[in-house]
């Protein structure tokens, strides 16, 4: 019984850790992608503006 | 027939938009990238459906459910590929219309369409009897294998269009010239 509770606790802690890791990395990827693609599109736009006005 | 295609290609090539698209570094590459990356949507879904029929993907999900639910994203992918494909042809019509690989690709697209029609017809006729089986009956599996094979060759042909091994002005081989539909004196891209 005590072992069962212990393993449930461990599973709960592991799930929290996995969720926290997923949240941190997913957030970082989403923010990075937004900045990266915005910068890429902006630089092409500026280049085209320089070329064609 | 080849003369007609050639004249049509020349007419397209002379339009201003064709020239603009061909000469635009970013626009042409953007259209080409969209064409290639949409493979993940169109062929990605198609491969999952075909592999399901062969029992190699999602074997514990009813086959009809996979085919029905992935059909819409697959078709959306194919529509995007079709539009970008037409634009790519429009940008370089003369060379593309006389490409051996492009012609082979077009023939195989028709073959794939016929295969897909027969595949769906056969599947709808009998799916109730084998829907939850991990592998579809042999006739359906044959259709799935043909689909995988033909589409793989189409991708190879599509990739080969970019190479000039058999271009009309470089290939001295008569048979290839005939299949490519080379018209005498054609030099421009």
């Amino acid at each position, binding site marked *: 019984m005590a072992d069962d509770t212990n393993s449930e606790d461990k599973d709960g802690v592991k799930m929290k850790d*996995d969720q926290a890791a997923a949240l941190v990395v997913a957030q970082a990827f989403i923010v990075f992608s937004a900045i990266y693609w915005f910068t890429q599109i902006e630089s092409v736009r500026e280049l085209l503006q320089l070329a064609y006005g | 027939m080849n003369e007609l295609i050639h004249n049509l290609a020349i007419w397209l090539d002379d339009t201003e938009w064709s020239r603009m698209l061909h000469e635009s570094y970013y626009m042409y590459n953007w259209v*080409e990238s969209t064409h290639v990356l949409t493979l993940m949507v169109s062929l990605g879904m198609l491969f999952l459906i075909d592999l399901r029929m062969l029992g*190699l993907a999602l074997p514990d999900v009813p086959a009809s459910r996979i085919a029905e639910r992935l059909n819409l*994203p697959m078709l959306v992918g194919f529509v995007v590929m079709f539009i970008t494909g037409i634009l790519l042809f429009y940008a370089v019509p003369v060379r593309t219309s006389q490409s051996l690989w492009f012609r082979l690709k077009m023939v195989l697209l028709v073959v794939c369409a016929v295969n897909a029609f027969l595949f769906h017809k056969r599947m709808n006729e009998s799916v109730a009897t084998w829907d939850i089986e991990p592998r579809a009956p042999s006739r359906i599996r044959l259709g799935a294998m043909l689909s995988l094979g033909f589409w793989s060759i189409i991708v190879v042909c599509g990739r080969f269009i970019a190479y000039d091994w058999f271009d009309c002005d470089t290939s001295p081989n008569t048979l290839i010239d005939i299949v490519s539909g080379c018209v005498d004196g054609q030099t421009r891209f």
Partner: protein
Amino acid sequence: MIATMFTSYPRTLTAVAALLALLTLAYGGAMDAVYPSLLTVFEWLETTWFGVIGKTWGAAFAFVEAVHLLGLALLGGCVLAGDGRLLGVVLTDVPMQTVVERTHRVFVFGLSICLATGIFMACGVATKIYYLPVYWFKMLALSAGMLFHFQVRRPLLSHDIQSLNPVVVKMVAVASMLVWFMVAATGRWIGFSG
């Protein structure tokens, strides 16, 4: 306090460290330190069997390029089906766990094709891609994608998905699609560069 953090959140702390390492490699100048010494490796790659075949036999290189695309289609299809299910867009009447678990197997197959053909192609044009920033960016994105898939997404989704925070699950799906799109798009751009 810190000791408790280490024992309770080992994956989170490792993930933060990996993110910082990737950012340092991409923008922090860490790459500059090792970059010159890698040239000899890339020169050697061109002398290997793969390199010689890729350089001298154009048809073989083109064929492998096409197989690379087929692997990409398979990989992308699995990502879209799996993450689309997590977002509630496709296969909504099939349990999430089933879709995620079954598409993972095909994903690994698609990724293996891409890696094998990618190594062949890299050998054939090694001294060209060495000088392309977009190639290095793709390698970083690929590393990030693989680490994310095997070390973050998969461990998370091995739990009962219904008991996970739905916002986190959806964010993971979006991030997964974004990172593989980044890998594919930067990969395509290698062909337009140099």
